[in-house]
Protein backbone atom coordinates (compact mmCIF):
# COMPACT_ATOMS: atom_id res chain seq x y z
CA UNK A 1 0.00 0.00 0.00
CA UNK A 2 1.30 3.44 -0.87
CA UNK A 3 2.30 5.59 2.08
CA UNK A 4 0.65 8.94 2.45
CA UNK A 5 2.61 11.88 1.04
CA UNK A 6 2.73 14.69 3.57
CA UNK A 7 4.31 18.09 3.00
CA UNK A 8 4.64 20.56 5.84
CA UNK A 9 4.28 24.29 6.00
CA UNK A 10 5.82 25.41 9.26
CA UNK A 11 6.90 28.40 11.38
CA UNK A 12 5.98 31.77 9.91
CA UNK A 13 5.29 32.69 6.32
CA UNK A 14 5.65 36.42 6.00
CA UNK A 15 5.87 38.54 2.87
CA UNK A 16 9.64 38.61 2.83
CA UNK A 17 12.50 36.59 1.36
CA UNK A 18 12.31 33.91 3.99
CA UNK A 19 8.52 33.43 3.75
CA UNK A 20 8.52 33.34 -0.02
CA UNK A 21 11.45 30.93 0.00
CA UNK A 22 9.37 28.54 2.13
CA UNK A 23 6.62 28.54 -0.48
CA UNK A 24 9.12 28.09 -3.33
CA UNK A 25 10.66 25.15 -1.45
CA UNK A 26 7.18 23.68 -1.00
CA UNK A 27 6.66 23.94 -4.77
CA UNK A 28 10.04 22.33 -5.49
CA UNK A 29 9.35 19.38 -3.21
CA UNK A 30 5.79 18.86 -4.45
CA UNK A 31 6.81 19.11 -8.11
CA UNK A 32 8.76 15.86 -7.79
CA UNK A 33 5.43 14.01 -7.49
CA UNK A 34 2.93 13.12 -10.22
CA UNK A 35 -0.61 11.75 -10.12
CA UNK A 36 -0.72 11.72 -6.32
CA UNK A 37 -2.68 13.26 -3.50
CA UNK A 38 -0.52 15.34 -1.20
CA UNK A 39 -1.62 16.06 2.33
CA UNK A 40 -0.55 19.53 3.45
CA UNK A 41 0.28 19.71 7.14
CA UNK A 42 -0.42 23.13 8.63
CA UNK A 43 -0.15 22.03 12.27
CA UNK A 44 3.28 23.60 12.78
CA UNK A 45 2.51 26.80 10.93
CA UNK A 46 2.26 29.80 13.25
CA UNK A 47 1.52 32.56 10.79
CA UNK A 48 0.63 32.94 7.13
CA UNK A 49 0.46 36.39 5.49
CA UNK A 50 -2.91 36.02 3.79
CA UNK A 51 -1.92 38.13 0.77
CA UNK A 52 0.46 35.28 -0.07
CA UNK A 53 -2.65 33.25 -0.91
CA UNK A 54 -2.00 34.63 -4.41
CA UNK A 55 1.35 32.87 -4.57
CA UNK A 56 0.20 29.74 -2.76
CA UNK A 57 -2.91 29.54 -4.97
CA UNK A 58 -0.78 29.81 -8.10
CA UNK A 59 1.51 27.05 -6.80
CA UNK A 60 -1.37 24.67 -6.09
CA UNK A 61 -2.99 25.42 -9.46
CA UNK A 62 0.29 24.87 -11.30
CA UNK A 63 0.94 21.57 -9.54
CA UNK A 64 -2.65 20.46 -10.16
CA UNK A 65 -2.43 21.24 -13.86
CA UNK A 66 1.10 20.13 -14.63
CA UNK A 67 1.66 17.23 -12.25
CA UNK A 68 -1.91 16.07 -11.92
CA UNK A 69 -1.67 16.42 -8.16
CA UNK A 70 -4.52 16.66 -5.71
CA UNK A 71 -4.28 18.21 -2.27
CA UNK A 72 -5.93 17.45 1.02
CA UNK A 73 -5.59 18.95 4.47
CA UNK A 74 -7.34 19.31 7.81
CA UNK A 75 -9.91 21.91 6.78
CA UNK A 76 -11.40 22.07 10.24
CA UNK A 77 -8.00 22.99 11.65
CA UNK A 78 -7.61 25.68 9.03
CA UNK A 79 -11.08 27.02 9.77
CA UNK A 80 -10.12 27.32 13.43
CA UNK A 81 -6.57 28.62 13.09
CA UNK A 82 -6.36 30.26 9.69
CA UNK A 83 -9.91 31.44 9.14
CA UNK A 84 -8.54 34.34 7.12
CA UNK A 85 -8.07 31.86 4.25
CA UNK A 86 -11.83 31.41 4.24
CA UNK A 87 -12.54 35.08 4.70
CA UNK A 88 -10.45 36.03 1.69
CA UNK A 89 -12.04 33.38 -0.52
CA UNK A 90 -8.94 31.21 -0.86
CA UNK A 91 -10.84 28.31 0.71
CA UNK A 92 -14.55 27.67 0.52
CA UNK A 93 -16.76 26.61 3.38
CA UNK A 94 -20.32 25.34 3.60
CA UNK A 95 -20.99 27.76 6.41
CA UNK A 96 -21.24 31.47 5.76
CA UNK A 97 -17.91 33.18 6.43
CA UNK A 98 -18.05 36.93 6.64
CA UNK A 99 -15.02 39.17 6.80
CA UNK A 100 -16.23 41.17 9.78
CA UNK A 101 -12.77 42.58 10.40
CA UNK A 102 -12.75 43.87 6.83
CA UNK A 103 -9.09 43.04 6.61
CA UNK A 104 -8.99 40.98 3.44
CA UNK A 105 -8.81 41.89 -0.22
CA UNK A 106 -10.26 38.86 -2.00
CA UNK A 107 -8.15 36.13 -3.49
CA UNK A 108 -8.89 36.09 -7.24
CA UNK A 109 -7.43 34.87 -10.46
CA UNK A 110 -7.95 36.55 -13.81
CA UNK A 111 -7.42 35.35 -17.31
CA UNK A 112 -4.84 37.65 -18.89
CA UNK A 113 -7.51 38.74 -21.37
CA UNK A 114 -9.88 39.87 -18.62
CA UNK A 115 -8.90 43.53 -18.31
CA UNK A 116 -12.43 44.56 -17.30
CA UNK A 117 -12.49 42.03 -14.44
CA UNK A 118 -9.09 43.10 -13.20
CA UNK A 119 -9.81 46.84 -13.40
CA UNK A 120 -13.13 46.42 -11.59
CA UNK A 121 -11.36 44.43 -8.87
CA UNK A 122 -8.67 47.08 -8.41
CA UNK A 123 -11.23 49.90 -8.36
CA UNK A 124 -13.84 48.23 -6.15
CA UNK A 125 -11.99 45.72 -3.95
CA UNK A 126 -8.50 47.14 -3.53
CA UNK A 127 -8.69 50.90 -3.70
CA UNK A 128 -11.86 51.25 -1.65
CA UNK A 129 -10.50 49.04 1.14
CA UNK A 130 -10.45 50.60 4.60
CA UNK A 131 -6.76 49.77 4.87
CA UNK A 132 -5.77 51.86 1.89
CA UNK A 133 -4.13 55.22 2.54
CA UNK A 134 -6.16 58.36 1.97
CA UNK A 135 -5.24 58.78 -1.63
CA UNK A 136 -5.80 61.87 -3.72
CA UNK A 137 -7.69 61.29 -6.96
CA UNK A 138 -4.42 61.72 -8.85
CA UNK A 139 -2.64 59.16 -6.70
CA UNK A 140 -5.55 56.77 -7.13
CA UNK A 141 -5.50 57.20 -10.89
CA UNK A 142 -1.75 56.67 -11.01
CA UNK A 143 -1.92 53.50 -8.96
CA UNK A 144 -4.79 52.05 -10.99
CA UNK A 145 -3.04 52.90 -14.24
CA UNK A 146 0.24 51.41 -13.04
CA UNK A 147 -1.45 48.18 -11.95
CA UNK A 148 -3.32 48.03 -15.24
CA UNK A 149 -0.05 48.44 -17.05
CA UNK A 150 1.58 45.65 -15.07
CA UNK A 151 -1.42 43.46 -15.87
CA UNK A 152 -1.32 44.29 -19.58
CA UNK A 153 2.45 43.82 -19.76
CA UNK A 154 1.98 40.25 -18.61
CA UNK A 155 0.05 39.63 -21.80
CA UNK A 156 3.11 40.52 -23.83
CA UNK A 157 6.07 39.47 -21.75
CA UNK A 158 5.07 36.47 -19.73
CA UNK A 159 4.45 34.23 -22.75
CA UNK A 160 1.81 32.30 -20.88
CA UNK A 161 -1.93 31.79 -21.01
CA UNK A 162 -2.02 30.87 -17.33
CA UNK A 163 -4.18 33.08 -15.10
CA UNK A 164 -2.83 35.93 -13.04
CA UNK A 165 -3.36 35.65 -9.25
CA UNK A 166 -4.02 38.47 -6.77
CA UNK A 167 -4.78 38.82 -3.08
CA UNK A 168 -4.39 41.49 -0.42
CA UNK A 169 -4.41 41.76 3.33
CA UNK A 170 -4.64 44.72 5.68
CA UNK A 171 -2.52 44.54 8.82
CA UNK A 172 -4.03 47.19 11.13
CA UNK A 173 -1.32 46.97 13.81
CA UNK A 174 1.39 47.74 11.28
CA UNK A 175 -0.84 50.16 9.37
CA UNK A 176 0.00 48.38 6.13
CA UNK A 177 -2.07 46.86 3.36
CA UNK A 178 -0.07 44.35 1.36
CA UNK A 179 -1.21 43.40 -2.11
CA UNK A 180 0.33 40.52 -4.04
CA UNK A 181 0.19 39.88 -7.78
CA UNK A 182 1.55 36.68 -9.31
CA UNK A 183 1.98 35.61 -12.92
CA UNK A 184 3.19 32.23 -14.12
CA UNK A 185 5.14 33.36 -17.15
CA UNK A 186 8.81 33.34 -18.05
CA UNK A 187 9.84 36.21 -15.77
CA UNK A 188 11.63 39.46 -16.58
CA UNK A 189 15.01 38.28 -17.79
CA UNK A 190 14.50 36.58 -21.18
CA UNK A 191 12.94 39.59 -22.94
CA UNK A 192 15.29 42.11 -21.27
CA UNK A 193 18.38 40.05 -22.03
CA UNK A 194 17.26 39.88 -25.63
CA UNK A 195 16.51 43.60 -25.81
CA UNK A 196 19.87 44.60 -24.27
CA UNK A 197 21.74 42.10 -26.43
CA UNK A 198 22.97 40.24 -23.38
CA UNK A 199 24.22 43.30 -21.47
CA UNK A 200 21.61 42.56 -18.80
CA UNK A 201 22.23 38.91 -18.05
CA UNK A 202 20.92 38.27 -14.55
CA UNK A 203 17.60 38.63 -12.73
CA UNK A 204 18.69 41.41 -10.37
CA UNK A 205 19.89 43.65 -13.20
CA UNK A 206 16.75 42.79 -15.18
CA UNK A 207 14.58 44.08 -12.33
CA UNK A 208 16.65 47.27 -12.07
CA UNK A 209 16.40 47.73 -15.82
CA UNK A 210 12.61 47.24 -15.78
CA UNK A 211 12.29 49.93 -13.09
CA UNK A 212 13.91 52.58 -15.28
CA UNK A 213 11.54 55.17 -16.63
CA UNK A 214 11.73 54.60 -20.37
CA UNK A 215 12.87 51.04 -20.64
CA UNK A 216 10.78 48.60 -22.61
CA UNK A 217 11.42 45.25 -24.22
CA UNK A 218 9.28 46.11 -27.21
CA UNK A 219 11.34 46.83 -30.31
CA UNK A 220 10.66 50.18 -31.96
CA UNK A 221 8.34 51.43 -29.19
CA UNK A 222 8.84 53.90 -26.41
CA UNK A 223 8.96 52.56 -22.87
CA UNK A 224 6.33 52.12 -20.20
CA UNK A 225 5.89 53.76 -16.82
CA UNK A 226 4.06 51.15 -14.71
CA UNK A 227 6.86 49.84 -12.50
CA UNK A 228 8.62 53.20 -12.54
CA UNK A 229 5.48 54.93 -11.23
CA UNK A 230 4.85 52.26 -8.57
CA UNK A 231 8.46 52.45 -7.41
CA UNK A 232 8.25 56.24 -7.23
CA UNK A 233 4.97 56.13 -5.29
CA UNK A 234 6.20 53.63 -2.69
CA UNK A 235 9.49 55.50 -2.38
CA UNK A 236 7.62 58.72 -1.61
CA UNK A 237 5.19 57.17 0.87
CA UNK A 238 7.63 55.01 2.86
CA UNK A 239 5.80 51.93 1.65
CA UNK A 240 7.60 49.12 -0.05
CA UNK A 241 7.65 47.32 -3.36
CA UNK A 242 9.03 43.81 -3.76
CA UNK A 243 9.73 42.19 -7.09
CA UNK A 244 10.53 38.51 -7.31
CA UNK A 245 11.51 37.00 -10.62
CA UNK A 246 13.90 34.22 -11.61
CA UNK A 247 16.15 33.53 -8.66
CA UNK A 248 16.05 37.07 -7.28
CA UNK A 249 14.24 38.84 -4.49
CA UNK A 250 14.37 42.61 -4.94
CA UNK A 251 12.88 45.13 -2.56
CA UNK A 252 12.77 48.92 -2.57
CA UNK A 253 13.42 48.85 1.17
CA UNK A 254 16.58 46.77 0.72
CA UNK A 255 18.07 49.08 -1.89
CA UNK A 256 19.48 51.22 0.91
CA UNK A 257 20.74 48.24 2.89
CA UNK A 258 24.19 46.69 2.68
CA UNK A 259 22.76 43.30 1.70
CA UNK A 260 20.45 44.03 -1.19
CA UNK A 261 20.69 40.90 -3.30
CA UNK A 262 18.87 37.79 -2.17
CA UNK A 263 18.73 34.68 -4.31
CA UNK A 264 16.45 31.68 -4.09
CA UNK A 265 18.08 28.25 -4.25
CA UNK A 266 14.83 26.86 -5.69
CA UNK A 267 13.36 29.57 -7.90
CA UNK A 268 9.72 29.48 -8.96
CA UNK A 269 8.38 30.77 -12.27
CA UNK A 270 7.05 34.07 -13.60
CA UNK A 271 7.08 37.13 -11.43
CA UNK A 272 5.61 38.31 -8.15
CA UNK A 273 4.93 41.88 -7.12
CA UNK A 274 4.21 42.68 -3.48
CA UNK A 275 2.94 46.20 -2.84
CA UNK A 276 3.00 47.63 0.68
CA UNK A 277 0.59 50.53 1.07
CA UNK A 278 1.27 52.46 4.23
CA UNK A 279 -1.85 53.79 5.89
CA UNK A 280 -1.34 57.50 6.55
Amino acid at each position, binding site marked *: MDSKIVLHLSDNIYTNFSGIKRLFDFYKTASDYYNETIYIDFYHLNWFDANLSALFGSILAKLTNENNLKFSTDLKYLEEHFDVLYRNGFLRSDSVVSDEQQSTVSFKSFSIED*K*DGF*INYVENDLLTHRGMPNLTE*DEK*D*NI*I*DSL*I*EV*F*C*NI*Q*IHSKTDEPFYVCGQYYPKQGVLTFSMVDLGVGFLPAIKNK*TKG*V*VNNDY*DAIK*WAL*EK*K*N*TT*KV*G*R*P*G*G*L*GLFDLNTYFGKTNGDLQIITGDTFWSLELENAVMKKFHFPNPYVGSILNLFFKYK
Partner: protein
Amino acid sequence: MNINVLDIIKSEFATNLTDGSVLFEAIKSYKPSEITISFNGIRRISTLFLNECIGQYAMNNPATINDLKFEYPADKENFSLKVEDVIENALLGDEYDTFVDNALLSM
Protein backbone atom coordinates in the same frame (compact mmCIF):
# COMPACT_ATOMS: atom_id res chain seq x y z
CA MET B 1 -11.45 64.77 -38.56
CA ASN B 2 -12.47 63.56 -35.13
CA ILE B 3 -11.23 60.11 -34.08
CA ASN B 4 -13.25 58.85 -31.13
CA VAL B 5 -11.27 56.29 -29.16
CA LEU B 6 -14.38 54.83 -27.48
CA ASP B 7 -16.01 54.15 -30.87
CA ILE B 8 -12.87 52.48 -32.15
CA ILE B 9 -11.90 50.21 -29.28
CA LYS B 10 -15.49 49.68 -28.00
CA SER B 11 -14.39 49.80 -24.37
CA GLU B 12 -14.08 52.47 -21.70
CA PHE B 13 -10.75 50.92 -20.70
CA ALA B 14 -8.08 51.86 -23.23
CA THR B 15 -5.39 49.78 -21.66
CA ASN B 16 -3.98 46.87 -23.55
CA LEU B 17 -1.83 46.33 -26.58
CA THR B 18 -4.70 45.20 -28.78
CA ASP B 19 -6.63 48.41 -28.08
CA GLY B 20 -3.52 50.42 -28.94
CA SER B 21 -2.95 48.57 -32.20
CA VAL B 22 -6.55 49.10 -33.25
CA LEU B 23 -6.30 52.84 -32.67
CA PHE B 24 -2.93 53.06 -34.40
CA GLU B 25 -4.38 51.34 -37.46
CA ALA B 26 -7.19 53.91 -37.47
CA ILE B 27 -4.87 56.94 -37.39
CA LYS B 28 -1.69 55.89 -39.12
CA SER B 29 -2.70 57.02 -42.63
CA TYR B 30 -3.60 60.55 -41.50
CA LYS B 31 -1.25 63.48 -40.99
CA PRO B 32 -1.25 64.86 -37.42
CA SER B 33 -2.79 68.13 -38.61
CA GLU B 34 -5.76 66.27 -40.10
CA ILE B 35 -7.09 64.62 -36.95
CA THR B 36 -8.28 65.23 -33.40
CA ILE B 37 -8.17 62.22 -31.10
CA SER B 38 -11.02 62.26 -28.61
CA PHE B 39 -10.81 60.35 -25.33
CA ASN B 40 -14.33 61.33 -24.28
CA GLY B 41 -16.05 58.39 -22.59
CA ILE B 42 -12.77 56.66 -21.78
CA ARG B 43 -12.30 55.94 -18.06
CA ARG B 44 -8.83 54.42 -17.98
CA ILE B 45 -5.79 54.63 -20.19
CA SER B 46 -2.40 53.04 -19.76
CA THR B 47 0.95 54.10 -21.12
CA LEU B 48 1.14 50.64 -22.66
CA PHE B 49 -1.91 51.51 -24.75
CA LEU B 50 -0.62 55.02 -25.49
CA ASN B 51 2.82 53.73 -26.46
CA GLU B 52 1.27 51.40 -28.97
CA CYS B 53 -0.84 54.05 -30.69
CA ILE B 54 0.28 57.61 -29.96
CA GLY B 55 3.91 56.68 -29.26
CA GLN B 56 4.24 54.72 -32.44
CA TYR B 57 2.42 57.45 -34.37
CA ALA B 58 4.80 60.08 -32.91
CA MET B 59 7.79 58.03 -34.01
CA ASN B 60 6.38 57.92 -37.53
CA ASN B 61 5.67 61.67 -37.52
CA PRO B 62 8.37 63.28 -35.37
CA ALA B 63 8.46 66.62 -37.19
CA THR B 64 4.71 67.24 -37.19
CA ILE B 65 3.45 65.44 -34.09
CA ASN B 66 2.84 68.75 -32.32
CA ASP B 67 0.05 69.43 -34.85
CA LEU B 68 -1.93 66.52 -33.41
CA LYS B 69 -4.88 67.65 -31.30
CA PHE B 70 -6.63 65.83 -28.46
CA GLU B 71 -9.92 66.06 -26.56
CA TYR B 72 -10.02 64.78 -22.99
CA PRO B 73 -12.88 64.06 -20.59
CA ALA B 74 -13.38 66.98 -18.16
CA ASP B 75 -12.42 64.95 -15.07
CA LYS B 76 -9.36 63.30 -16.57
CA GLU B 77 -6.71 65.98 -16.63
CA ASN B 78 -3.99 63.41 -16.12
CA PHE B 79 -4.71 61.88 -19.54
CA SER B 80 -2.96 64.82 -21.19
CA LEU B 81 0.12 64.42 -18.98
CA LYS B 82 0.37 60.77 -19.94
CA VAL B 83 -0.01 61.57 -23.62
CA GLU B 84 2.70 64.23 -23.41
CA ASP B 85 4.98 61.85 -21.54
CA VAL B 86 4.50 59.11 -24.09
CA ILE B 87 5.22 61.49 -26.98
CA GLU B 88 8.34 62.72 -25.23
CA ASN B 89 9.47 59.14 -24.64
CA ALA B 90 8.82 58.30 -28.25
CA LEU B 91 10.85 61.21 -29.54
CA LEU B 92 13.77 60.40 -27.22
CA GLY B 93 13.72 56.87 -28.61
CA ASP B 94 17.06 55.41 -29.64
CA GLU B 95 19.05 58.26 -28.13
CA TYR B 96 17.81 57.23 -24.71
CA ASP B 97 18.38 53.52 -25.38
CA THR B 98 21.98 54.25 -26.35
CA PHE B 99 22.45 56.29 -23.19
CA VAL B 100 21.13 53.44 -21.03
CA ASP B 101 23.19 50.84 -22.89
CA ASN B 102 26.35 52.89 -22.40
CA ALA B 103 25.61 53.40 -18.73
CA LEU B 104 25.10 49.65 -18.28
CA LEU B 105 28.32 48.86 -20.12
CA SER B 106 30.24 51.15 -17.79
CA MET B 107 28.86 49.40 -14.67
